């Protein structure tokens, strides 16, 4: 058929489907015309008008019958049958209300869980692979390679050199994240704080995003002549301006400076992370200043087509080398540039496996829902054996019977999908709000149902409907109509597949047991073990910590070590005079607990794969805070200043790992490539006890401490030692001292004791795991609904038998035993299989993580696992009792007289 014919055919079908009235009236007119011509022909042949009319009508025959034939030929039979069957499916759902409700709940839960998992992982993939903006392999993030995981941002002056000299990139964009106070002119007190960015004007062109109102920056917008321009987000437009139309070109105050709003970005745009406004700049005010005083930028670039990442790296490193030669004071240590795409970052973090696991989990949950719905449908279809046999005997084809059953499944799945989407939407909103309270990862903020997710759920509904009803439909199509109609007592046996239903129940129980086990382990056992493993050699309540961002205070702008020493000396003076304070120290370990990892090179060892250790920059009194002494050699002291030889002390773990327990004093090492000057070796002068706790997931627990005067820390943590260090007076003393000595500095995330910090950490992890626990609970609920439905069906099939047993004297307990025995065996089999599967999974996990010592130390496999699994058994049995109990109770209440009467 030609294209014209296809188009014509589709138009006709469309017209017949959506304008049936018009089509009917056309048919009517045609029939009437034919009849009139037939009458006139008869008159011409000599009949009277009345005779002619009667003869013509008689010739025509049954008009309704051939009008129906005409309608069938319009090609809408398939559509009409589909609609008819869909209506039938809905009526069936109303007829079997209880099983419909169960099936819809199960499918809604399964689809909701699956959609939520898919949304989460789809968000990770979208952001991770493309930055949420369709970025591909050619979009690279650039930073200085420093040996740390993240690298170091590039200052604005170096950025301009790269932008000027690079040939392998089409575009380079610089971003400086900053916050600002927004308010309308004259209404400063009513303003709000937003996070935004100073950017090169080409940012929006780079992201290929257009504003929903107004415009974005042009190249000249970084000129700063007159009123500065700002582009704002949809969030600011909604929260601050109530989406008023006339916002573009209006004046707004940003950090007390007049700005003009030139554009509003679409909803969801918050590049690079959670930015709500953008200001164009070229950082010209820092040109000519000392380079290390220029702001540090996040840099992203677009490779020219034809250029490879390797070619770009060679060029970048060559420019870096030139900069190091031209500016040795500031650029000596920046010799290599790291260039990576979003996907590189995901891969390096092992994200691919996580993403695949997540997607696999979505499908698994959906299949679980399908299997539950299958059990319900097979029982329901078995109950319709008589009806189906009647249809068969009236001439229904096999495909028609199959379609009848599948329509039932699809109708239930459709309703399940609608409710499931509603559940998923509410669930995603709840999770977003929950995660916002303790995670700064904006990747999971504002989770919502997006078009691709709705498409996924439609696919999930079709998959569930077909998956759940395929086998029941096939079984129903093979029904022995004669046998069923002859002998009603066997009405269900030809459809129901007892062994398959039981196998599904067994596998669901096993799956639920495994999910519950891991839920209990990660919610209860692991935190308990971690807490046990955190056997700190000091009293966690006696050390108070406060991390301070000194760089925000003007006196530290020059970043001179002497300024830090002066600050610390004055701080010590103030705080040691507070009654009860025993000692004070500074450390670079965040919250006093977590220090940075760094690659090291030990003198005399040429290794391709450099080992890593945790580096801690400390003040001389560090050991005193923990009431500890060096194990050998000496501790860092006040003579280890920035103009003396570089020294460090190591903890006992470090000596064990890197020197096999031998005395490392006198050995030398370098930190790569961070250290400045790069040429100088650091000498180990002492060994101290292990003080830093082995936190969850920590791979390396070897620490070395360097003097803060030789390796300054600009966001140090203040450690204050006192009995009951958590008392209010000490917190106030620290706050007051910092406000007085460094008014511009900020205390990050509060002042807490080590004990409180650990509680916060475990609470954060626990909260995240609770979300998983809810999912585990939903899985268990689905399994139990499936169990209940199948037991209810099989029990109802045996009502006659129970009636007769009761009539001949069986006790209710006897009936209970008859009903429950096979199902306890089934649930028990599921638990055994679950246990064996768990053993296999744990063995696999231990094998995969074998090189990670913390994996085996997380929990004692044999003892703790057994106890935890006993809890799982108890929980599953308790819940199974509910599923089994209700139909069993019904069985004991069968009235023998009703049964015999019905017979």
């Amino acid at each position, binding site marked *: 058929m030609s294209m014209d014919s296809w188009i014509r055919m589709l138009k006709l*079908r469309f017209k017949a489907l959506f304008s049936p009235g018009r089509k009917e009236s056309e048919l009517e007119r*045609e029939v009437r015309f034919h009849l009139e011509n037939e009458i006139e022909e008869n008159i011409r042949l000599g009949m009277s008008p009345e005779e002619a009319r009667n003869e013509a009508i008689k010739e025509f025959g049954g008009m309704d019958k*051939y009008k129906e034939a005409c309608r069938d030929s*319009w090609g809408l039979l398939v559509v009409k049958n589909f609609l008819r069957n869909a209506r039938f499916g809905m009526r069936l759902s109303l007829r079997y209300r209880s099983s419909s409700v169960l099936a819809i709940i199960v499918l809604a839960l399964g689809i909701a869980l699956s959609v939520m998992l898919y949304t989460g992982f789809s968000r990770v993939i979208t952001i991770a692979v493309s930055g949420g903006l369709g970025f591909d392999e050619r979009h690279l993030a650039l930073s200085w390679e420093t040996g740390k995981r993240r690298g170091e941002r590039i200052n604005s002056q170096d950025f301009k050199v790269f932008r000027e000299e690079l040939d392998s990139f089409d575009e380079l964009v610089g971003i400086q994240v900053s916050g600002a106070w927004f308010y309308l002119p004259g209404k400063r007190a009513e303003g709000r704080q937003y996070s935004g960015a100073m950017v090169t004007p080409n940012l929006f062109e780079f992201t290929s995003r257009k504003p929903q109102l107004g415009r974005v920056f042009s190249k000249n917008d970084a000129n700063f002549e007159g009123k500065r321009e700002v582009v704002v987000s949809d969030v600011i437009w909604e929260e601050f301006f109530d989406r008023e139309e006339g916002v573009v070109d209006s004046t707004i105050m940003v950090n007390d400076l007049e700005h003009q709003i030139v554009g509003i970005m679409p909803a969801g745009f918050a590049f690079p992370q959670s930015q709500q406004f953008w200001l164009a700049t070229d950082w010209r005010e820092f040109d000519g200043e000392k380079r290390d005083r220029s702001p540090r930028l996040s840099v992203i670039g677009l490779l020219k087509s034809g250029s490879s990442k390797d070619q770009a790296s060679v060029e970048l490193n060559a420019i870096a080398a030139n900069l190091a030669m031209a500016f040795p004071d500031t650029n000596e240590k920046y010799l290599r540039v790291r260039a990576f795409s979003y996907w590189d970052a995901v891969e390096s973090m092992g994200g691919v496996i996580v993403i695949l696991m997540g997607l696999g989990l979505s499908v698994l949950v959906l299949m679980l829902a399908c299997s539950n719905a299958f059990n319900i449908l097979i029982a329901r279809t078995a109950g319709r054996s008589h009806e189906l046999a009647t249809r068969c005997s009236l001439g229904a084809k096999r495909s028609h019977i199959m379609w009848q059953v599948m329509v039932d499944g699809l109708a239930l799945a459709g309703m399940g999908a609608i409710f499931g989407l509603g559940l998923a939407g509410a669930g995603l909103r709840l999770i977003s709000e929950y995660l916002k309270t303790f995670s700064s990862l904006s990747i999971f903020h504002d989770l919502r149902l997006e078009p691709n997710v709705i498409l996924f759920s439609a696919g999930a509904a079709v998959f569930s409907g077909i998956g759940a009803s395929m086998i029941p439909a096939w079984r129903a199509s093979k029904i022995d109509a004669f046998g069923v109609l002859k002998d009603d007592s066997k009405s269900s046996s030809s459809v129901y597949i007892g062994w398959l239903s039981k196998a599904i129940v067994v596998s669901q129980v096993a799956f639920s047991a495994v999910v519950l086990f891991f839920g209990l382990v990660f919610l209860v056992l692991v935190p308990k073990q971690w807490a046990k493993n955190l056997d700190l050699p000091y009293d966690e309540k006696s050390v108070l910590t406060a991390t301070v961002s000194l760089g925000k205070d003007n006196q530290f702008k020059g970043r001179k070590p002497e300024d830090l020493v002066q600050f610390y000396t004055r701080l010590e003076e103030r705080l040691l005079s507070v009654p009860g304070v025993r000692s004070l120290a500074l450390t670079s370990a965040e919250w006093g607990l977590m220090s940075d990892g760094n690659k090291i090179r030990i003198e005399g060892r040429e290794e391709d794969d450099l080992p890593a250790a945790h580096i801690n920059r400390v003040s001389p009194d560090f050991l005193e805070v923990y009431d500890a002494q060096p194990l050998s050699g000496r501790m860092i002291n006040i003579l280890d200043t920035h103009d003396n030889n570089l020294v460090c002390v190591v903890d006992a773990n470090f000596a064990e790992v890197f020197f096999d327990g031998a005395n490392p004093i006198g050995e030398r090492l370098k930190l790569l490539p961070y250290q400045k000057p790069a040429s100088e070796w650091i000498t180990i002068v002492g060994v101290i006890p292990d003080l830093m706790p082995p936190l969850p997931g920590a791979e390396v627990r070897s620490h070395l401490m360097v003097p803060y005067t030789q390796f300054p820390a600009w966001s140090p943590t203040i450690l204050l030692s006192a009995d009951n260090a958590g008392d209010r007076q000490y917190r106030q003393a620290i706050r007051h001292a910092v406000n007085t000595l460094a008014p511009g500095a900020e205390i990050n995330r509060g002042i807490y004791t080590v004990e409180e910090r650990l509680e916060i950490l475990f609470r954060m992890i626990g909260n995240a795991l609770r979300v998983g626990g809810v999912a585990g609970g939903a899985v268990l609920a689905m399994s139990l609904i499936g169990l209940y439905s199948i037991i209810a069906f099989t029990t109802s099939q045996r009502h006659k038998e129970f009636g007769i047993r009761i009539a001949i004297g069986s006790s209710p307990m006897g009936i209970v035993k008859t009903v429950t025995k096979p199902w306890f065996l089934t649930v028990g089999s599921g638990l055994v299989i679950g246990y064996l599967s768990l053993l296999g999974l744990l063995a696999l996990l231990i094998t995969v993580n074998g090189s990670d010592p913390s994996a085996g130390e997380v929990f004692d496999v044999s003892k703790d696992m057994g106890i935890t699994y006993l809890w799982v058994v108890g929980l599953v049995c308790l819940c199974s009792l509910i599923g089994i109990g209700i139909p069993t109770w019904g069985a004991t209440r069968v009235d023998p007289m009703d049964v015999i009467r019905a017979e």
Partner: protein
Amino acid sequence: MAKTFNADLMQGTLDMLILRVLHSDSLHGWGIAQRIHVLSSDILKVEEGSLYPSLYRMERKGLIKASWGISELNRRAKFYKVTKTGMKYYESEREKWIQLASATASVLGHSF
């Protein structure tokens, strides 16, 4: 007088007959039935119950197209016209039918 046969008896031929009479002219349904009756020397009579479903089916397949117009008796009628696709279909079906008819005639022509 020769006996009148219902064109239904010749399965698959009705479409071909309709396409043939529409080859030269566009006609309404009644006109098509009359033309077939006349061209077949009053032997073939097309039942209305077969004609209109066939016309709608062929229109859906794109073998003919329809439009409303005014008949010779000044009444509104739906006229059908063959399309290029319809012509190609007619040519191929005609070829097959002639071969079939010829073969059938050969067999029937043999004496027993």
